[in-house]
């Protein structure tokens, strides 16, 4: 439970909101004095994905903060749709201080006044690539691509269109929509068959042709379980995690590099509007953007850094996206349009793709 910090005793939410507004207007030097300090015993609630994400941030963000300030970190693990919907349901009284969202959801959350836009109050903000400064603090690039089991799918997959090959029928675990993988799958299908994010009808039609699916997968952990148990043999997933999975658990799995390219995806850390732990949240994100944390991500799960001053071992470069030029090779979309269409596409996905 969050404890009321001494420095803010007597402040109502309205006062705090007013102060935050004033802090936004004031020069940086003034704003730091207005911002609430980090108090011993404070609890920071962070909504993030489980597994490696939790382990790395616990080591590089949670532990240093706990040791330095005597604060507690409350992790709430799960998928993006779950924490996004809770943050929306709780607008005005957030129970999360930080939520991690995908590239498109983060921008909409700022527009809906659920999360805050990024600011230079986080020192490492200065080192972020431009695309990682919209809708929150971009903490990782992790493009989405085609992945498959080479023992079952013996002819290599080199195009997004390969899912429609007869030898893949009934072997595909299609990613659930909405979600980064499901979004990339939908939009790349549209693009591969002559459509675009403004014209997704062709994508829905083509994906429906692939039914029946071996499964619909909702997360990489689920997919890897399906690969382990040979429930499915091909899917669309983050190349980063899958490379780690292939190297450590399942050497049968191939991370393809389709001719149409890989779809951009990025994780964003977003501070909720109305958080009572502003300074602590900013300190957390600053640590997440530190070269040490970004290096750990790159080494452990092949996440590409979002800061220009990352210091990575040379051997990693071939497996990552480094620098503005490489980031530009990723297939990008009009995310404002994508998020606007999300409710409608979700209903269509359930209706035309996932549902029986």
């Amino acid at each position: 439970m969050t404890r009321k910090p001494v420095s803010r005793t007597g402040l109502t939410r309205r006062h705090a909101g007013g102060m935050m507004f004033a802090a936004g207007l004031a020069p940086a030097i003034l704003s730091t004095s207005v911002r609430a300090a980090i108090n011993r015993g404070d609890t920071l609630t962070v909504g993030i994905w489980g597994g490696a994400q939790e382990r790395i941030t616990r080591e590089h963000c949670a532990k240093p903060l706990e040791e330095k300030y005597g604060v507690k970190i409350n992790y709430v693990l799960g998928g993006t749709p779950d924490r996004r919907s809770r943050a929306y349901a709780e607008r005005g009284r957030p129970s999360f201080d930080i939520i991690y969202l995908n590239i498109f959801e983060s921008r909409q959350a700022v527009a809906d006044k659920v999360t805050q836009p990024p600011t230079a109050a986080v020192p490492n903000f200065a080192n972020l690539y431009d695309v990682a400064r919209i809708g929150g603090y971009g903490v990782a690039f992790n493009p989405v691509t085609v992945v498959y089991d080479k023992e079952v799918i013996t002819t290599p997959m080199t195009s997004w269109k390969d899912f429609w090959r007869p030898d893949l029928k009934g072997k595909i675990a299609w990613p659930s929509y909405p979600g980064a993988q499901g979004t990339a799958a939908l939009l790349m299908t549209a693009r591969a068959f002559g459509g675009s994010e403004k014209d997704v009808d062709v994508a829905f039609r083509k994906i429906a042709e692939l039914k029946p699916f071996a499964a619909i997968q909702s997360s990489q952990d689920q997919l890897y379980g399906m690969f382990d148990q040979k429930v499915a043999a091909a899917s669309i997933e983050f190349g980063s995690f899958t490379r780690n999975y292939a190297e450590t658990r399942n050497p049968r799995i191939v991370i393809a590099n389709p001719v149409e390219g890989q779809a951009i995806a990025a994780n964003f850390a977003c501070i909720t509007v109305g958080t009572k732990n502003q300074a602590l949240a900013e300190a957390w994100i600053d640590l997440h953007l530190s070269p040490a944390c970004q290096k750990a991500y790159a080494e452990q799960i092949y996440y590409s850094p979002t800061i220009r001053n990352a210091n990575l071992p040379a051997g990693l470069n071939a497996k990552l996206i480094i620098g503005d030029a490489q980031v530009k090779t990723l297939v990008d979309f009009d995310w404002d349009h994508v998020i606007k269409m999300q409710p409608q596409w979700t209903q269509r996905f359930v209706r035309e793709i996932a549902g029986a």
Partner: protein
Amino acid sequence: MVASAAPAGGAARSGARESVAWSAGEGRPGLFLAPIVLWLAGGFALPLAVVALLSFQPAGAPFAPITAELTAEHFQALLTDAYYVRIIVNTVLLGLGVTTACIVLGYPVAAWLASVPARWKSLAIALVLVPLLTNVVVRSLGVMMLLAPGGIFASALRGLGFGQVQLLFGWFAVGLALTQVFLPFMIMALYDGLQGQDRRLVEAAEGLGAGRARTFFGVTLPLSLPSLRGGIVVVFLLASSAYVSATLLGGKKIWVSGMLVMQEAMALLNYPFAAALAMIMLACSILATAMVNLVVARLTPWVAQRATTDLGGTRWPWLARSGWAAADALAPWVYRLLLALGLGLLLLPMGLVVVASVNDVPQATVASFHGFTWRWYRAVLDNQRYIGAFQVSLQLAFATISIALLLTVPAAFALARHKLGRRELIAALLMLPLALPGIAKAVGMLKLLQWYIEIPAFFGLLAIHVVMVSPFMLAMLRASVAALDRGLEEAAQGLGAGRLATLVQVILPQLAPGLVAASIIGFLISFGEVTVTAFLVTAQTQTLPVRIYAEASFSLENTINAVSTLIIVATVALLALLGRLVRLDHAWRR
């Protein structure tokens, strides 16, 4: 509590008079019923009213205000669009299928429970109660392991020559999981009826030459129809509004109404549409209950003292004498097979969870055993997330039963002791929260909490939990109050004891086992609840089962099995405690 402080000395006489009036049921029953009625108004009727209002609101932005321009567009969309109609129909069919499976498997298990010798009875009942009171996520995980490729089921089918069969992520998996989850409700309902049946009727049938099959269809089944009705209604209502098992075992390929409500309300923030679907589910529930009541009333004319027909003879003329003879010969084998299947389905998934919790693999649903380890337990006990969620669950469950006791004890006295004109109607109204899908309450409460952000979110959760456990606790306490020895109270009053003294020294000591039993059942229901709770938790008030559900639907690490095993062990321990206080077969009454 039921009595305020009363003078014990000089005013003892007037105190005694009041006490007699109170305990004889001539006091003010309205006052005793007021707390529970008020709570149900706030925690049940109000959210339902909100859902009804929302369902007629136009579609709009997530934060759109309520308007006076009502529309039926969502109902129209839901009832005219073949896609939605199919989901609703599929959900109802799934509910019917699960109910049928529960009847077929429930009878043998209930009959076996009724026939178990008295000294083994508590243990046998515990075999059913442990799964019943263990939360749905844990049990769904067990069913996942049962059906996993390389698991017992798939291996057996391979052994029979069916090859590699994909059992997970389909209707069969969801149906089996729901049967596992709701079978105990059917068993306990049927057990209630079978236990109370007059053995002499069975003996008479046997004496007249009826074999086991004929006796079952001609005597046991018709006489147990009123109990079966209760089981059917509960199982159908729960199965047709469930979404947790369908989400975990359907692999997003299976869509049921509950999942759609969850998606529309939580992921798409389309509350009016979710509310309209919840209202349709509500209507289906009421319709189904009415139909079941009608059919059972027709099949049990003797209950209304109308002429009876011979169910075993004329209803099935095609079963000629030789047919009955064959059925009688097969009956013992069918009984044993179904009993084994029923008990296996109840216990096997939980056993698999326990075994998997010490399996040395990081993934939670690996069916084969790779080596023994305690490391998942160490990981759980070092994990602040689980410990924090456990504390929230404990706080919520304790707060829930504390409030529920304050509401249900006076109500139990009012129902058990007052000569209320429409006592059964009032009792039925107080049980109503059981008969309507929790998902509608959840959507209504979620919206209420958004409108009134001054109300702490925990309070909304607490209000709903009290509503959910109160009917169970009330039913148990009503029986306990009815069983109190009135003679002792009269003796105490005769000796000059006041109201408070009679309450503290005579009534409460007698009632204590009943209070503790009701509290344990209420605690376990509150602690394990997921379906409604998942809508209402915040990051700070995540309960343990909801946290396991959220993590299980995203990532399946083996720590989930370890924490689930701890929950199973705690449930067994609490039931053992309960068994020392009251006879377990008396503890769980509808």
